[in-house]
């Protein structure tokens, strides 16, 4: 399968990228990892007149922690870099849990986190993870730089808040104010398939009490679902069987699954409840056994 004919530019700077996007508007598409865009172009679901390949721009492949504890992930940081990251393993358990579950090992070598967010697939895993962590997308355009909260970044299925002449350059995960915990669980029929259901749960705790919580759902609606009520129900509470049940029920209610070849709506809703319960119960067990020290074996 061939994509339809397009022009190709490989700029060396963000500034040059923005100029090209400004000049060509909606007819241009940014190519980073290409693991979603190239298949879409081959199937002719996307036929941009101009492909702007940003892979030759130096200095975008990073992920690093700022002195204040916030994390920055550059536009060319590949899933595989995150999967092998000692930094994530040490300080960001939800992202560390999700990284090995993205697509398959070979796709992870090229695909990027930022590209995955921009692609805004309702079944994309990173969007839920970054939403649960209250991440922000840093965007550059002719007018300068702006920052968009993840909750506002995805505007619908395969739609994001970028203007035609803007490019997403990095994602920022705000510094945790207490001990970060949580996880990502994904139900897939086989490696590399889209998520039947994915659940991201991020919590921060001071002592026994949850001081911040984020829950977001993959694959159970027209776009990434922010289960804000479920998360809010946890704040100020200890993780007990009752509070976990309440959050899991609220998350399941927030899901808007449809019956398809991957499973019935009822089954998917049930899996949301199960995954929220599993992640939170595992966190509750960690503190009761490890006396407050996280990441116990």
């Amino acid at each position, binding site marked *: 399968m061939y994509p339809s004919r397009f022009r190709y530019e490989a700029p060396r700077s963000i500034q040059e990228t923005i100029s090209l996007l400004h000049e060509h508007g909606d007819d241009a598409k940014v*190519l980073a990892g*290409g693991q979603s865009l190239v298949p879409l172009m081959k199937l002719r679901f996307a036929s941009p007149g101009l492909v702007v390949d940003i892979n030759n721009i130096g200095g975008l492949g990073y992920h690093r922690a700022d002195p204040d504890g916030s994390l920055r992930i550059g536009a060319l940081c590949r899933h*595989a870099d995150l999967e092998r990251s000692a930094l994530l393993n040490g300080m960001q358990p939800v992202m560390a849990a999700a990284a090995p579950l993205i697509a398959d090992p*070979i796709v992870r070598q090229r695909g990027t986190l930022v590209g995955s967010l921009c692609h805004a697939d309702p079944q994309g895993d990173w969007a839920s993870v970054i939403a649960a962590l209250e991440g922000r997308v840093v965007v550059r355009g002719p007018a300068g730089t702006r920052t968009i909260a993840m909750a506002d970044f995805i505007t619908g299925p395969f739609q994001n808040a970028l203007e035609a002449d803007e490019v997403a350059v990095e994602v920022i995960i705000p510094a945790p104010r207490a001990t970060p915990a949580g996880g990502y669980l994904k139900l897939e029929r086989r490696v590399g398939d889209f998520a039947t259901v994915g659940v991201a749960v991020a919590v921060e705790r001071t002592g026994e009490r949850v001081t911040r919580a984020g829950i977001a759902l993959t694959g159970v609606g027209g776009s990434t679902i922010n289960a804000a009520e479920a998360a809010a129900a946890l704040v100020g509470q200890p993780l007990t069987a009752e509070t976990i049940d309440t959050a899991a029920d609220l998350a399941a209610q927030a899901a808007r699954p449809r019956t398809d070849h991957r499973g019935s709506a009822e089954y998917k809703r049930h899996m949301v409840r199960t995954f929220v319960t599993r992640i939170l119960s595992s966190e509750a067990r960690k503190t009761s056994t490890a006396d407050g020290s996280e990441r116990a074996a």
Partner: protein
Amino acid sequence: MTMIFVEPDDEAATDVPVRRISFTVNGQKKIAEVEPRLLLSHLIRRGLGLTGTHMGCDTTNCGACTVLVDGRPAKSCTMLAVQADGHEIETVEGLAGASELHPLQEGFRAEHGLQCGFCTPGMMMAAKALLAENPNPTEEDVRWALSGNLCRCTGYQNIVKSVLWAADKLRPASGAEPDGSAAEASTEVTAEG
């Protein structure tokens, strides 16, 4: 240096935006003039005539077209040929030396790691990347690393054994792991050879 020209279809070539790229394939420098929509897999197979790289699903699922780009595995049906500009590509043809097989190829032979052989080039390239990163993989590591490559014949058992066989062969003899499966594999080498 080799000059090749690839035209993806029969349309008049006058308006076609062609780009000149230079890259290496299995250590040899190449220059090509390609249309941006040409896929890397097609450049390799039709432009360079290296048909060891197979096109399976053409939808980023099966991994038969896996090659190494600067040492990292990539599904070549999901990369534009123009993106190879300035990079090093390695295909299955680059594995064997002039007179001897690569340990991975020997392993697939010794352990019957293929039946129809269609997925084999992709399996070997993914395995090569794994062994470069982790010379002492467990069975689980091998299964994980090959989970982006589909095989419809073998049920994967012998593919996994083949990669472990190669890992054992590639390990420096002095630093051999005191590991049961490795010892078993060495016995078989002797029996085979």
